[in-house]
């Protein structure tokens, strides 16, 4: 396989990686923000401000992705990361199911 790398796609790929990490952090922050809003310690005005800041961040990121034409690449990186996380967690949390699944697929193959 020939990997075709030029200045353009290297920049775009690197940018997509960075943006997808920023997006992950943004999403995690958003969930924490919801928890704080539900926690009841924030005033009405603070909730407003927090919501506005989150919305602005969303717009800025979307704009950046559209500008650079990397929306698809970012989605791919995020899907890839999610797959890895899912895989690792699954192996950690229920090793038994993996054994069963492996056996099952073996049986199917034999049949």
């Amino acid at each position, binding site marked *: 396989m020939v990997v075709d790398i030029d200045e353009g796609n290297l920049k775009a790929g690197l940018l997509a990686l960075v943006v997808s990490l920023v997006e992950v*952090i943004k999403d995690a922050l958003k969930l924490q923000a919801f*928890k*704080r809003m539900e926690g009841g310690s924030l005033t009405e005005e603070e909730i407003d401000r927090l919501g506005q800041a989150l919305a*602005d961040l969303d717009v800025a990121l979307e*704009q950046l992705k559209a500008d650079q034409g990397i929306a698809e690449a970012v989605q791919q990186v*995020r899907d890839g990361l999610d797959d890895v*996380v899912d895989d690792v967690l699954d192996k950690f949390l229920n090793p038994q199911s993996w054994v069963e699944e492996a056996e099952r697929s073996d049986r199917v193959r034999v049949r």
Partner: protein
Amino acid sequence: MVLPPGPVYLPTKFKQSTLVDLLDRALDKGVVIAADLVVSLGGIPLVGVNLRAAVAGMETMLRYGLMRDWDERIRDWERTHVEKREPALLESERTVLRLYGALWAARGIYRAWRPGHIYLTNRRLILFRAQPAETLLEIPLFSIKGYTVRRETRFTGHERDLVYLALRSGRSICLCAEKHEELLSAMATEMSSMGIPLVEEAASPFAALDGEAALMIGEAIKAESKMWYQAPQRGILGDTWRPGSLYLTDSRLLWWCDTDRQVQLEVPVGRLGGADVEAMDLGGLIGERPVLSLRYRNSHGLETALLTGDGLAEWKHAIEAFAEGTEACPGCGGLAPRERLLEQGCPSCDWTSPLPKPEPVAAGPAEGRLAGEGVQAW
């Protein structure tokens, strides 16, 4: 219940856990790291690390009674110190449109897009960044002379429209706006209610050499194409080939660097000597390819600039044809296009033609004849 014969459907997992879920769970529960580390060399401890860290979402932290006073203090500070979330408006000023945008800022070595929100009011155009609060741009609407929209291709191949505004002061600015058509039409409406027209003008988006994103309104482009230019040595960098665009206008030849968004070669038409296409070994993987060598005069004497790209032969013709259509200025002796000398005067000194200017109402052919006679007179 008896299952119908056929394939057996097994329950499968459909909920995928994502990285965000993992982070959320970790922050929700909280992570405590306790580590004692001793780095030793030859059995002698040299560096000790005693690490106690707890990472958790603020809500969890507060539930465990940690960082409560920090939380209070930070929110308190924000409440009392930061009240400016919107640009300060004058009395009787109202916001017409608010959208996301960015301004190209270039000053010295600082060159970047500065993002914020564009506020169009009935008096001004403002670019305001809320956090940290700063007004990045503020121009009264009456100082805007004209605009042009130019589609530029980014390195990703994605195209976007940039808005260039020409100001009455002669400065010009470059904006990138979320919905620029909406912004421009709203601007035109506001300005026409003030009795000022907002006109679209033909313009070339060239930064003046001081680095400000600028455009020369009224300068007609005669030829343009993507072109590589061998930029002369600068700092620790030797001569480097850089991507950009070459433009020939009615008064100059210039090369605009794509990455720096800056003009790096500017030759007034009078100083253009001519051009040759020759094969040159560029080394490395590129090998030998045709190069346009451009001769011009500057304050150091005769210089040569090297350019390469497609359509070099056409460029050679364009430049030569242009050099032929020039005339020496009677004032300073510099070369300039004949028509420009007669109609607007010399671009390098203050000389203007003493011949009567053609009447603006005169028909096209009459103007042409007058200009021709003028040339013969000189």
